[in-house]
């Protein structure tokens, strides 16, 4: 049927502009360039690179803009984020938000994870609800369950470093958290899928 309609279009000399769409900003083209470090559709296979596929648009968009203006410290992301305008950041964020979250496949220390469960419940659950599994638009914090432990460790190192900027609401108050507590809670998130 479509073949027939197409034939008519040719026959009566309709302009091709009806089917020749002007190229615009493409969230998938932009997002696909990130895959070399963040995995196909944001499902990272590298331990220090976070899974970003399936995170809320608002979260990714905010993070990219903070990287761009320097209010969130990074090694390479600040340099990369400066390459994109607001519309491009919105498009790539929307692309990643559309993807399914794929939890990292990693080893878990079950005993540490159990201890971490208690620490999470007492300290983190208020914001990172439902054991850190919640993905919600708006100001909600990011999903932690199933995130790479090595990445979260780097993030926590930054939270504890006054010179390393990020907007974590508890930044500056984590100093009392021991390293073993952090290890345990990260094992808990690794155990959650």
């Amino acid at each position, binding site marked *: 049927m*479509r*073949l027939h*309609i*197409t*034939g008519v*279009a040719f026959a009566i000399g309709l*302009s*091709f*502009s009806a*089917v*020749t*769409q*002007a*190229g*615009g*900003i*493409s969230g*998938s*083209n*932009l997002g*696909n*360039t*990130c*895959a*070399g*470090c*963040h*995995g*196909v559709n944001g499902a*990272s*296979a*590298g*331990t*220090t*690179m976070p899974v970003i596929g399936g995170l809320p648009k608002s979260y990714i968009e905010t993070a990219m803009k903070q990287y761009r203006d320097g209010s969130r410290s990074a*090694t*390479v992301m600040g*340099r*990369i984020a*400066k*390459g*994109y305008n607001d519309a491009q950041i919105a498009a790539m964020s929307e692309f990643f938000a559309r993807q399914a979250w794929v939890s990292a496949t990693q080893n878990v220390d079950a005993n540490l994870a159990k201890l971490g469960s208690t620490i999470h419940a007492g300290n983190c659950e208020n914001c990172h609800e439902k054991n850190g599994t919640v993905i919600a638009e708006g100001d909600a914090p990011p999903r932690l369950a199933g995130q790479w432990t*090595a990445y979260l460790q*780097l993030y926590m*190192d930054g939270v504890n470093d006054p010179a390393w900027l990020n907007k974590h609401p508890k930044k500056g108050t984590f100093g009392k958290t021991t390293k073993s507590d952090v290890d345990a809670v990260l094992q808990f998130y690794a155990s959650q899928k």
Partner: protein
Amino acid sequence: MSNSNRRNFLKAIGGVSVASVMGLGSSRAGAAVKAKVVIVGGGYGGAIAARYLKMAEPGLEVVLIEKNKQYVSCPLSNTVLAGFGKLEDLTFGYDGLARHGVTVVHDTVESIDPQARKVKIGGGKTFDYDRAIVAPGVDFKWGAVKGYDEATSLTIPHAWKAGPQTTLLANQLKSMKDGGVVIITVPDNPFRCPPGPYERAALVAHYLKQHKPRSKIIILDAKDKFSKQGLFTQGWKQTYGDMIEWVAAAKGGEIDAIDAATRTAISVVGTKYQADVLNVIPPQHAGQIAHTAGLVNPKGWCPNNPVTFESTLQKNIYVIGDASVGGAMPKSGYGANTQGKVAAAAIIASLRGVEPDESAYLNTCYSLIAPDYGISVAGIYQVKDGQLIEVPGSGGVSPMDASAAYRKVEAAHAHSWLRNITAEMFG
């Protein structure tokens, strides 16, 4: 649409299902295309193009022709010279691409006929295509350094294609006496992996510092500056003291010839540098098939439309990766990766008869100075006035004088980078 464009358009859709090309009455995302794409070369560019074509259009017939049954990653292969990396961790098979529906053919490519749209392989078989992607990487200009040809490379390694050459160089370093001199010769731009020679010097120094600490490394360079220069120079000094000496072209570093028998590099000004281990990184040009197929400019690289990476010399052939001119992008694995995606998206748009969306180009490249000492460069590119340029004010290299912790994080990222980019190609 002009008449000639219309003719091309009609020609273009000749080989594909008209109904699906037009995509009338459905969104572009839903418009299935029946067509055949043949990809020559299964490295960082070709393998990715194959996968992304199948991801976007599962019904598309994608044939990947690659002579090697296993791919060995050049990125991170200097870690083998350092003694902490293993070649088997950098070696990948093509089963993953086959699982994604790509037809993988292990053979050489004899010829490409752009008019008849046929690719002929060494075994004699011919593959028709609607679109072709040519991703052959680089070949060496044997003889450009006098006395250095393919046969000589079996004793004087280039190790600029990872695999047996990497092992050869690693073994020579292992056999070298303490107090020996390692010479690395570096060609002028453009060449594959601009920071690679300087990472190599660092990682060879890492090996020597532990096992042969009285040894020296001399880099003889055909250039007066190089990629991540400040960072490398700082990192070499911090980590290896005076073990690495870099000789710029202006200081007589450009070599004219080698004498393989005595492992001597002879500079253009006649200075002789005798080595215990001589590593010649030869001048390069696009892989041979690009020459055979009429895809190269007089300098031996493939010019293309930066929006699509379609060759400006042959229609319906897209040249990606190190073989392409590539505008401001370096000849890097990550560059080839994003160019593969640009070509895949452009091919699908052309098969559907729509304008391609805005293309996106990125490069992120890590170098290791030591196991816990990484540095990076990032670049974001855009097409402006027909040129592929860096987005002003973006990208750049790691900061100078960063903390050891910062360098350690970037070293960890280098390994995560490899995991992700190779999983994307072969997973």
